[in-house]
């Protein structure tokens, strides 16, 4: 019986092919239906492949864009207008006066994704919250170290020593018990990394002994679910039919992975994609009436980080000399076309902890020469600069920036070798391991709290494994950050941060270069808000005309 069926199918198919071939010959063009297909879909030309489909385990913006807002929800989220924290999967929450106990009351009837690889039998509840966070906290959790994953964001904010215990009060109430109060805790829970994953899915995977799939084949509660991923090529999402908020207005969302800047722009110009990540040639885009260029004020900083564990940059004088020798004004003009602010410190102007009175790194070849002489390198030395291979708001063209710095440093006798050509995730990994001598990189804030700038980039905890690629570890600096976190008084915190930044300006583990806006181009057909000041792209409310 089976065989006959198969045979029938084959015959049917071959007939179909024959009839199609004749239609190919007979009919010329008709593209009526394809417009309807494209009206229901959005293609986003992204700049790289995600390293994982679980934002808990990564820090790169590329992976965040592809996962956080599309596939998952958090307990809390940010209000786009005023950066206030607002409810998401948690309906409401309560913080005790000492700030050490936080109780979340969870939303009911929130459905997880139903896909080819998982069918949920129950809705979201407290078990999922426990599962999501215990995975990070508990070293012995069966999902803690599958396939060698790490939790760089949570390590950098020292999550495991902050949270003492997570308690399930009932199915829809959980309580976080902290070891000490932390003023950025709620912000961290609202950030793109603190997503909720399904504990039921975890059980299924652990029974079938395929635990590593938890980060490869994602199940979340977000507005979209994963349909298909072809590494290096594309990601296809379908809308989540039972999404608890307003459902997505499109029938498919496609991330077309196009690392090359020019091919990406070409795709937009030729209608191959609707939204474009990190566009080049802004002026050119503005010339097309059917395209718009979005500008979003973004909390970010681009910097040149020194590997303070490797000579010669273990010497403060050398770092200072290099900082003096770099003409940042020329960099702003050339790389950012003047559309960026010179970074005074790590914090951009829009951050509430921004200190207007702090002194700025000046450009002086003479001072640089003297310092270099003092440091014992009168004739200079040879160093390398690792230039990040992708375009980011904080650094739209690291390779050219590296070339400018190469020319600047040659003036004080330093020979620069530029390292480029690595794939983005490989690059981040090698920099994390400290392969570089200096690196052009940057940071986009995940939430508006200034702690999110200082702790991930420069704290001891994130050195080596997190996102502190300078390997710099300064006890006094860390102490100030801790003090700032334990205070709820904004003026007091401001003072701590000013002191911490003064230490950075003195020690120069990195040279902040610029704060810039984030750009994005899209077809005018695409309506709705996509970008916020921080965090990844969000397609939830986007529609297409």
């Amino acid at each position, binding site marked *: 019986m089976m065989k006959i069926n198969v045979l029938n199918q084959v015959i049917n198919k071959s007939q179909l092919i024959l009839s199609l071939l004749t239609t190919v010959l007979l009919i010329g063009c008709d593209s009526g239906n394809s417009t309807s297909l494209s009206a229901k879909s959005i293609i986003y030309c992204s700049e790289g492949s995600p390293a994982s489909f679980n934002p808990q385990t990564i820090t790169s913006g590329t992976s965040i864009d592809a996962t956080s807002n599309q596939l998952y929800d958090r307990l809390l989220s940010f209000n786009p207008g005023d950066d206030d924290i607002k409810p998401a999967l948690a309906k409401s929450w309560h913080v005790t006066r000492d700030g050490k106990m936080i109780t979340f009351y969870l939303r009911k009837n929130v459905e997880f994704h139903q896909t080819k690889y998982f069918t949920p039998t129950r809705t979201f509840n407290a078990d999922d919250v426990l599962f999501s966070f215990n995975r990070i906290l508990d070293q012995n959790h069966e999902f803690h170290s599958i396939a060698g994953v790490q939790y760089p964001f949570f390590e950098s904010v020292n999550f495991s020593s902050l949270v003492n215990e997570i308690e399930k009060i009932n199915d829809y109430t959980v309580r976080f018990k902290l070891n000490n109060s932390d003023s950025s805790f709620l912000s961290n829970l609202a950030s793109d990394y603190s997503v909720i994953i399904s504990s039921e899915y975890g059980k299924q995977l652990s029974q079938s002994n395929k635990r590593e799939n938890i980060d490869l084949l994602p199940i979340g509660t977000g507005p979209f679910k994963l349909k298909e991923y072809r590494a290096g090529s594309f990601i296809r999402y379908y809308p989540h039919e039972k999404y608890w908020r307003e459902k997505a207005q499109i029938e498919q969302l496609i991330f077309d992975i196009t690392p090359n800047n020019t091919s990406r722009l070409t795709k937009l110009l030729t209608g191959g994609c609707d939204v474009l990540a990190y566009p080049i040639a802004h002026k050119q885009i503005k010339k097309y009436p059917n395209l718009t260029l979005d500008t979003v004020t973004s909390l970010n900083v681009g910097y040149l980080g020194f590997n303070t564990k490797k000579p010669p940059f273990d010497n403060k004088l050398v770092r200072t000399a290099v900082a003096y020798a770099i003409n940042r004004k020329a960099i702003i003009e050339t790389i950012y076309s003047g559309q960026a602010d010179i970074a005074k410190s790590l914090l951009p102007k829009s951050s509430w902890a921004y200190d207007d009175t702090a002194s700025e790194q000046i450009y002086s070849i003479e001072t640089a020469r003297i310092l270099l002489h003092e440091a014992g390198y009168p004739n200079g030395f040879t160093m390398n600069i690792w230039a990040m291979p992708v375009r980011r708001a904080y650094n739209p*063209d690291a390779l050219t920036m590296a*070339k400018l710095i190469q*020319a600047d440093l040659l003036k004080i006798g330093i020979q620069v070798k*530029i390292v480029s050509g690595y794939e983005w995730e490989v690059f981040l990994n090698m920099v994390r391991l400290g392969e570089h001598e200096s690196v052009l990189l940057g940071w986009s804030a995940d939430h508006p709290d200034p702690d999110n700038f200082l702790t991930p980039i420069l704290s001891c905890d994130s050195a080596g494994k997190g996102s502190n690629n300078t390997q710099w570890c300064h006890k006094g600096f860390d102490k100030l950050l801790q003090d700032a976190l334990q205070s709820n008084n904004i003026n007091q915190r401001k003072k701590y941060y000013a002191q911490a930044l003064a230490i950075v300006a003195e020690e120069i583990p990195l040279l902040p270069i610029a704060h810039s806006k984030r750009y994005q181009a899209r077809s005018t057909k695409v309506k709705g808000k996509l970008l916020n000041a921080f965090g990844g792209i969000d397609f939830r409310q986007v529609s297409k005309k």
Partner: protein
Amino acid sequence: MARNRIYQEEEFPSPLVQLWHNFRQNKVVMFGFGSFVFLFLLAIFSPILTPYSSIQNNLDHLLVPPAWDVNGDVSFLLGTDNLGRDMLSRLMHGASLTFGLSFVVVIISMLLGVIIGSLSALTTGIKSVFLNHFLDVILSIPSLLLAIVIVAILGTGLGNTLWAIVLVLIPQFIHITKNAVKEEFSKDYVLASRLDGAGSFRILSYSIFPNIIEKIIRQATLAQSAAILDIAALGFLGLGAPIPLPEWGAMLSNGLDLFYIAPWTVYLPGLAILFSVVATNLVGEGMRHALKQSKES
């Protein structure tokens, strides 16, 4: 003083002179040859001739279009790139990198290939069979792919790229030399000198080389156009010349991001590569034609 001819003398020009004689007949070929010589001289003297430094940034003149454009500047004849470097100077310097180095590469691989080829022509038996197969295998791998693999072993960089291309080109020279030497060895004049008591090496250097040199030069021109394209392709893929050297392929890939705002940074290096490959191919073509004519005459 008039020269008296006592005997009816017939001049026998050497094969090379004869080749040159035939070669000169075709105007297009001579144009190609002229361009080739021009590029060769440019490759040697570019450091003296360039109007600006090809490496130093000039941030006051970013992305100046070529002089014929409305916004162009005559002092930068072919415009500047995104770091204000003069395109003309960079292209001239690039001539010594892409074209000059391809020439060097071909000479080295030719020498090595001819030596190995003639030695292998003298060997027979299992060694020769093995070598034959090995050459077939190597020749079946696309040259660029092989070069990429060798670069992956040696690490990226201009020097390594050059070695990779040398290694890729050698088998072709071995192949052609071996076949040519074998063919000549079967001819009567070789038999004659062998009867005179000449050893294999003597025959090789005195009798055979002068007769196969044109074939090798012809192969060298083919190899050179391949070498130019390979150096440029590796540069384009970011595996060749390091930043900031103005190798043409690397220049082109540098211009890629500027394609929409400064198209000349893409057109010009491409044209330079095309020009040098056409010049080389014309020389090779002329050589082939001339060879055919000398054989027919």
